[in-house]
């Protein structure tokens, strides 16, 4: 089983430990992991802010780089959602029929991390050990566009030593929304405060999720407020074992 | 040509620029309409007794009084319900059977009654066209047994005689049983209500504040 890791532009720059955890996890599960060094970004930031033409070249680049691979694994629901929801229209508009067909052939082989683990590897127990109280944040893209459903919960349920605290109003948006977080910073912050009330009420040590984008927003506020909770991408929980615990965060 | 009719042409022309059909393509339209997906429930699943119980439950949920009776006992049931209101002045549509107009009450039969007189009635007695159990809805088509619309709007108490055979479980079943679309319909699913002040539900803003349903087991 081979998988090529699309790390995403922001994980590459800001959360390389998430990428390291994905590699460690997949290799432990017997997957041969490769990494295409020419990757950059999926184009979501541009497409969602109205800069559609700019997203075209990034979409094209993605297909050119990955057309031959067996699987692409992406530790970010929003990037996968971008490819499934918006790339079809982008490739229609680009007018390159060959590229469009290549995209359509590629997209079924593109997986968000929890989808790859549960659907493709059929691995629920990945041998993880993380003895902490944890709450899980379901990002909107994962929840509504990818319909991840109970995959993350089933994976977390098998993590030894871990206690999953239920989160109230779990389907309510945290307020990140990409450039919304700066274009409408005040409203984004109001939504963040509301979300944080429910998150902190879980009395968890860690807030986890499948998107570092939401976690960056929530974790950034936790840090600002000396909240006594921190964020960690689920890849890092799943990669953690007794011998190699998760890399220290903040 | 009036201003309005040239606007009519302008609007229809603008619509045509964005759509596929015109009035002339009626055949296509009908086919497209028939092909629309309708996989929702077209009928309920309850037996008639359970259906009637459901209706009674829903009516009670929104504070309606329900009395059950037989066709033979109907006039007595009506008299009892009217008496229970403690009121005397009742309006009624002209076509109501005279044995429904219980003695001991002041009847204002609607043979073109002035609005003022209806306004001063304390209640009204009518029949109904149908009822939908699922939502606790009483349906009036304002035929001769139900009276014109303001008759069931102005008085504060509505006593409504409903036959069990008029009750269906779901809304699609109601539409199925309409032989032709009625000219006038009022669907009543509770006393008037507002939640406009702090989302606190207050009943009886306009329209009757009390509903008494006499369910006649005619099956």
């Amino acid at each position: 089983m081979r998988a090529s890791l699309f790390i995403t532009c922001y994980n590459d720059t800001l959360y390389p430990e998430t990428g390291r955890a994905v590699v460690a996890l997949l290799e432990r599960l017997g997957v041969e992991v490769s990494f295409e060094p020419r990757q950059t970004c999926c184009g979501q930031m541009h497409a969602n802010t109205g800069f559609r033409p700019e997203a075209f070249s990034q979409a094209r680049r993605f297909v050119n780089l990955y057309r031959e691979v067996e699987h692409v694994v992406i530790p970010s629901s929003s990037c996968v959602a971008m490819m499934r929801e918006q790339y079809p229209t982008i490739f229609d508009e680009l007018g390159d029929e060959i590229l469009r067909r290549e995209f359509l052939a590629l997209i079924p082989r593109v997986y968000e991390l929890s989808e790859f683990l549960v659907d493709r590897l059929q691995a629920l127990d990945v041998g993880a050990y993380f003895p902490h109280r944890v709450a899980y944040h379901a990002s909107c893209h994962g929840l509504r566009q990818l319909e991840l459903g109970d995959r993350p919960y089933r994976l977390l349920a098998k993590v030894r030593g871990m206690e999953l605290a239920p989160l109230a109003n779990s389907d309510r948006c945290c307020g990140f929304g990409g450039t919304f977080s700066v274009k409408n910073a005040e409203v984004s912050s109001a939504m963040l405060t509301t979300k944080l009330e429910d998150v902190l009420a879980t009395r968890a040590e860690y807030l986890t999720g499948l998107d570092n984008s939401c976690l960056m927003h929530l974790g950034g506020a936790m840090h600002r407020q000396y909240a006594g909770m921190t964020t960690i991408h689920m890849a890092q929980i799943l990669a953690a074992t007794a011998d190699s615990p998760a890399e220290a965060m903040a | 040509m009036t201003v309005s009719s040239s606007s009519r042409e302008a609007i229809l022309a603008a619509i045509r620029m964005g759509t596929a059909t015109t009035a002339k393509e009626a055949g296509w339209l009908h086919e497209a309409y028939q092909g629309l997906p309708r996989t929702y429930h077209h009928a309920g699943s309850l037996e008639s007794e359970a259906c009637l119980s459901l209706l009674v439950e829903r009516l009670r949920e929104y504070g309606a009084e329900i009395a059950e009776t037989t066709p033979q006992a109907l006039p007595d049931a009506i008299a009892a319900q009217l008496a229970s209101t403690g009121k005397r002045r009742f309006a009624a549509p002209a076509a109501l059977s005279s044995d429904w107009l219980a003695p001991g009450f002041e009847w204002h039969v609607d043979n073109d009654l002035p609005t003022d007189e209806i306004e001063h009635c304390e209640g009204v007695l009518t029949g109904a066209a149908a009822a939908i159990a699922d939502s606790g809805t009483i349906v009036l088509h304002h035929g001769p047994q139900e009276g014109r619309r303001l008759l069931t709007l102005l008085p504060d108490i509505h006593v409504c005689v409903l036959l069990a055979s008029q009750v269906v479980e779901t809304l699609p079943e109601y539409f199925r049983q309409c032989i032709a679309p009625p000219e006038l319909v009022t669907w009543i699913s509770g006393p008037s209500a507002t939640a406009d002040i702090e989302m606190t539900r207050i009943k009886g803003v306009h329209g009757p504040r009390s509903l008494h349903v006499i369910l006649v087991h005619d099956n």
Partner: protein
Amino acid sequence: MTTAQPHAELDPRFAPPFPQAALTVLRNPQLRRNVAHAVDIIQAKRGRLVAEKDDWQQLRSAASAIRSHVLESLGAYLEEFEVRCTAAGGIVHWATDGEEARRIILDILRQEQASEVIKIKTMTSAEIQLNPFLESNGVRVHETDLAEIILQLGEEPPSHIVVPALHVNRSQVREIFARKMGLPELSDDPQILTAAARRYLREKFLTIPTAIGGANYLIAETGSVAVVESEGNGRMCLTLPRTLITLAGIEKVLPRFDDLEVFLQLLARSATGERMNPYTSLWTGTVKGDGPERFHVVLLDNGRSRILRRPVERQTLKCIRCAACMNSCPVYRQTGGHAYGSVYPGPIGAILTPQLQQLQHAQSLPFASSLCGACYEVCPVKINIPEVLLELRSQVTRQERSQARRFFDPLYLGLRLANFLFASPRRFHLAQRLGRIGARLFTRKDGWIHSLPSVGGKWTLTRDLRGLPDETFHEWWANRKKEAR
């Protein structure tokens, strides 16, 4: 003819952009609490009823298909409606825009020598700013919905399309009624407040012979009109007056009477969390001996036919005005309706208002969303609001980026730069290295960035940012490969 504008904050031509308007309401704890309280209640009720309806998704599919079909054949259905309604005694007028609709209505009122009208709440009349126009032309308008009275007497703009006064609490209502109805002893018990409104309006219903209202549905097959309500003021206005004027957007039409079996199951559950609203009325033209002798329908275009031409945006017109989208919206929950600068707030407002304004105004609205998709999930007619938002963002950006002042907008510059960098891995990697160095300037001893300039400052308004790690993932990978050899 002059038109007064009492609520500039809801006029898209004059309203401040969303981020600015939102700031004002975010600092109003009472309004925020009232809004959150209201939407949470409706959402909870809706959720329970939807859970008990096992054909809910099928109903949504049918409703979406019927509405799309109507839009595809709108001209034909409108013509059919006109023929049937006219045959039943109604008079049908066509108005290309708000100004024409107002004029048509005023002409009818002049013919009737009406100096006062009673009115059922209709969003469409607010869209065309009918009330101030009539008032300034000597016609007194009496709103009859409780919320509308509260707003009219209190001179407040609406903030929700189904529960317009949800931002007002009971003591505020008490104060308004006491003052305007001359009832200084009035308590703030909602029951008593409502009774006061009932008495106040009764006299108007019984004496004013002209009414103006809207329509939830126009039925093409029969020429009928359906109005869905809770209070009963609709029934009063539809049956007591001598003359009734119904104002309806051209998109309100449904093909057949039977189609109501779908929409009447969806609307109340979506709008107020009830299986069925208290009163739904349907009438056909004029009926001898029952209700108005004269009935007019004013069909309003006002930009709808233009929206119809747009392939992605056309779905906006499927809307049945249930407000489920705003009840589910996490943004609306924080700001209420006033921040949207339009009579149509929330997610539907964010896509409808800019389109009705031909993107000349309200350009900030498509960005007033985190794209969470909750609205699409609850929309009974399956309008993919996020999809339309993205399309409108594209159009606004296309419009704006050609403007000189936008060229130096830091966000625009940042995005252009990012695109330039993403186009080449070497550029990207170089930028990452430079960024790492630059970020050190802002990184404090705890390894986090607490404050950034310019656009970055919007992030650090309320959030810290962890300092850039010493090694990117791809650098780590490259080193690992080297070490492995």
